[in-house]
Every structure is written in structure tokens, then in C-alpha cells.
């Protein structure tokens, strides 16, 4: 039988550049995403930010082990696999951050005594890994058709040695920074759902970073909308 190559991959790329205040520029690296690229998981997506790339797969709602079941809501498991080697302590802390964000935005009470599994595979890490994981997770959960109360996105900010705020830093910029912050921003009211920080900074700098991340998140949410629109317009 002749095989027909069907276009399952919907690739969408975009970049963004925004000014917030004279002292800091909000510039995001070129980002792109693909949905429904894997055939076995119920939902899958891959998110690329510059050179950092993460692939996510979602299974669920599926059967759960009796020892892990929760009587009134679904059990969410997140697994982060690094590019090289076995998952370690760093991956465990990333899993916890992603899990807390997903649990806050998914409607878990619709599937009691079921399990949702989210697997994130790091394909390349060039800075801003946690926010790339969050973005890939959100797109994969949408692709699987799971009920969510709001969308979320991840933004990373780095404060360099001379006090400049850099959004979406590369690995080299992260290494030279004085502080590194990752935020998960919610889609409805642009509030901070999760924050993970490293390094030393002042309260004023923290507030500035939050404001800058909220501004940057608008671009990412618009990108989500455009990607989903492209994906559904093919079948209309």
C-alpha cells in the first residue's frame, strides 16, 4: 500500500523584542513549538527557545496504583530527563516546580483516582531551562485536551554583575550573572504562580524582574494562541 506522508508536525516560529524601561531591555530569543509530534502519548509538544529545546509528553487520565491514588483528584507525576545521564537532585527540584504549577492550573478534581503523567525530555540546554520546561508542559497539556482553569508560561530573568536585567539568558549569561530567577506566570491575570531564584538580589530588583517577566509573558501567550489557531485551522 502506498504510504502518504501526512503533515502531523505544526511548526511555528517567532521572536520578540520589547522595551520596558531605559535601563533594561526585554528581549526574548526566537521561540518555536510543535504539537502532536509523538504518536504514543495522549498529548505531546516540543518548545524551543533559542538553542534550549525541551520535548514534553502527557499520558492521562489513566490507571493509577492504589498506593498513589487520591480519592478526590488526579495524581500528577512529572518526570524530567536530562540530556545526558540519569535524573538527579537538580531534576527532582525542577520536577517539583513544574508539578506545583501544573497542579494549580489543571482541573484535577474532574478525574479522581486517575493518574496524569508528564514527561519532559531535555534535548539541549542553553539557559532558561526551567521556563522552557514550563512552556513545553503547558503546550503538551493543551494538546492532550486536559481541562485547565488557566494557561501558564515560564520566563527566566538574570541580573548581571552591573545590575542589568536580562530576560531569557543564554547559558553563558547565566554563568556570569549575580542572580537568576525563573517565574511561572498565569494567563488570566498575569500573576506569579511559581518562582525559583538563585543568587543574591534586593527587593527592588525582585519587583523589577517580576514586572519585566509579566511583560514578556504577553508575547508568549500570544504565541500560544497563534500556534493553536494554526493547528486547528488546518482541519476546519
Amino acid at each position: 500500500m502506498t504510504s502518504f506522508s501526512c503533515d502531523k508536525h505544526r511548526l511555528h516560529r517567532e521572536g520578540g523584542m520589547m522595551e520596558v524601561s531605559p535601563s533594561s531591555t526585554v528581549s526574548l530569543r526566537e521561540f518555536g513549538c510543535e504539537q502532536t509530534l509523538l504518536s504514543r502519548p495522549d498529548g505531546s509538544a516540543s518548545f524551543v527557545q533559542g538553542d534550549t529545546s525541551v520535548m514534553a509528553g502527557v499520558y492521562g487520565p489513566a490507571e493509577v496504583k492504589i498506593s498513589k491514588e487520591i480519592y478526590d483528584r488526579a495524581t500528577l507525576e512529572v518526570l524530567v530527563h536530562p540530556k545526558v545521564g540519569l535524573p538527579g537532585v537538580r531534576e527532582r527540584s525542577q520536577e517539583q516546580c513544574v508539578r506545583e504549577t501544573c497542579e494549580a492550573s489543571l482541573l484535577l478534581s474532574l478525574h479522581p483516582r486517575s493518574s496524569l503523567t508528564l514527561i519532559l525530555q531535555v534535548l539541549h540546554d542553553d539557559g532558561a531551562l526551567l521556563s522552557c520546561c514550563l512552556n513545553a508542559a503547558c503546550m503538551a497539556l493543551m494538546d492532550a485536551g486536559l481541562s485547565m482553569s488557566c494557561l501558564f508560561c515560564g520566563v527566566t530573568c538574570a541580573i548581571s554583575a552591573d545590575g542589568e536585567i536580562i530576560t531569557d539568558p543564554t547559558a553563558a549569561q547565566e554563568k556570569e550573572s549575580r542572580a537568576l530567577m525563573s517565574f511561572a506566570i498565569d494567563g488570566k491575570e498575569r500573576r506569579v504562580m511559581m518562582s525559583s531564584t538563585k543568587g543574591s538580589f534586593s527587593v527592588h530588583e525582585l519587583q523589577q524582574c517580576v514586572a519585566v517577566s509579566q511583560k514578556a509573558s504577553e508575547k508568549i501567550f500570544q504565541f500560544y494562541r497563534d500556534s493553536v489557531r494554526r493547528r486547528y485551522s488546518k482541519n476546519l
Partner: protein
Amino acid sequence: MILRSGRWRCGWSTDFRDISCQAARSSVRMFSVLKERVGEILLPGDEFCCGPQDTLPLTDSGKSERLVAGPGLRRSGDRLLVSRSGVLRHKEPNKFWIESQQRRYVPAKGETVIGVVTAKSGDVFKVDVGGSEAASLSYLAFEGATKRNRPNVQVGDLLLAQLVVANKDMEPELVCIDGSGRANGMGVFGTGGLLIKVSLGLVRRLLAPRSDLRADLEQLFPCELAVGMNGRVWVRAGTVQQTLVVANLLQSCDAMTAPQRQQLFRRLQQGAF
């Protein structure tokens, strides 16, 4: 082509009644706002609200419209929230829902599904329907079954059954008879044939009243199809090769647009036969 399946009305058979049917009394304004956006692609978190500044025109009778929110829409206070990404659809007079592409099945009452018997324990069979839990099927729920005359069902058999109990809190239950005690096409399948897994959207397209996909398939060669709303399709044609052709066709049609599919069918008709 013989097609066996349950009834499937409008866009979603029973999700309106059971899982997310929340009738909301809304002002005429929310109804018209929703109607304007039918066909648009919405994301989780989008909402439709009935603001306090809504005023009904003096000429109105003063009665508010009743709105039925289907899958993908949730009511929260006086707002209607979107919980899945997809296209907003409407059916007269007042049903709205979000049509999304999904692969994983969540059991809903009244749907006809294809299940695989996984265990026999006492008086019930445990059947896997693709949801988060195995469904139970009593041995008395077959046509002509009594305590002495047990149905001939073995572990590993395929059967077509209807869900009578399916909500998020309880274990799903199946029956192989309808309300009047007749089988009506349900029950264990015969030998032969192939079971394939497809997306829920393809199943709905196959079962739609005027389906192009079914019309195209009918022109190929005679075959027997049983379609389960849980994304499973059982195919049996004259020869094994024809069965495999139909099975591969259905799986590849999943991701194609209509013109691509018609081109594929044309190539098949010219090339293979």
C-alpha cells in the same frame, strides 16, 4: 458496508446531560456574545461574562435564555469559562461546546464502546474500555442470559457494549442489551477482523449523519466496521489484505485534511484495483 455502532446525535451524545451539562440562566446579551464567537478558536482561561451593566431592552419579554454548556465550557458564578483549547460550536437552540482533538477516552453515560474482556470474577466480567478504570459487565446483561444459561464470553474477547453508569466517582458499568432487553447489534464479535485505535475526532467523523469519510469508504470494497466511541474501530473485509488496507487507511486519515484524503482514496482505487 455494514456499520455497527451506537446512536450518535448532534455533536456529543450524552456529555451534555452528564459530565458537564450546566444550564446557565444568562441574559440575552451573553447568548449573543457566544453566538458571535461560534467558529472561533478559544484557549483555556478565556471567559464570557454577564456584566452588571447588561440591560434588557424595554421591548423584551423579560425572560432570560437558558444556555446549555457542553464539554469544554464550565460555569463559575455568572461567568462561563473555557477549559479546553478548540473551536466553539453551536447547535440550535441553545447548546454550546468546545470541539477539541483528543486521543484519550473518558467514559460517558450512554455511549457505545468496544471493550476487551480482561478478567472473569464471580458474576461480572472486567472489560477494558480505554479509560482510567476497567468497566464491569454483569453476565446477566446479555440477550437471553439467565443464571443457568450463561453467555459464552472468554477472556480476550471483543465486545460492543453500552455504558449505563459512567461518572468520575464510580467504576463504569456496561450492558450488552438495550432498554427492551434486545441485543441490538451489541455483544461479542465474531472471529477475524482487526481492532485499531484512532483518535476520538475520527470516530465522530465516521459516525456523523452525512459523513464524507464513510461515503468514500463505501466505494472501495465491501467491509464490516464496528465503531466504538472510545476511539476503537474493528474492521473486517473479504480478505486479510483488504482488511489491512482499510485499517491503514483509517489510521492515516486521522491527520489528513479532506482534499488530501480524497486524493489518497483516488490513488488507491486506480493503483490497487
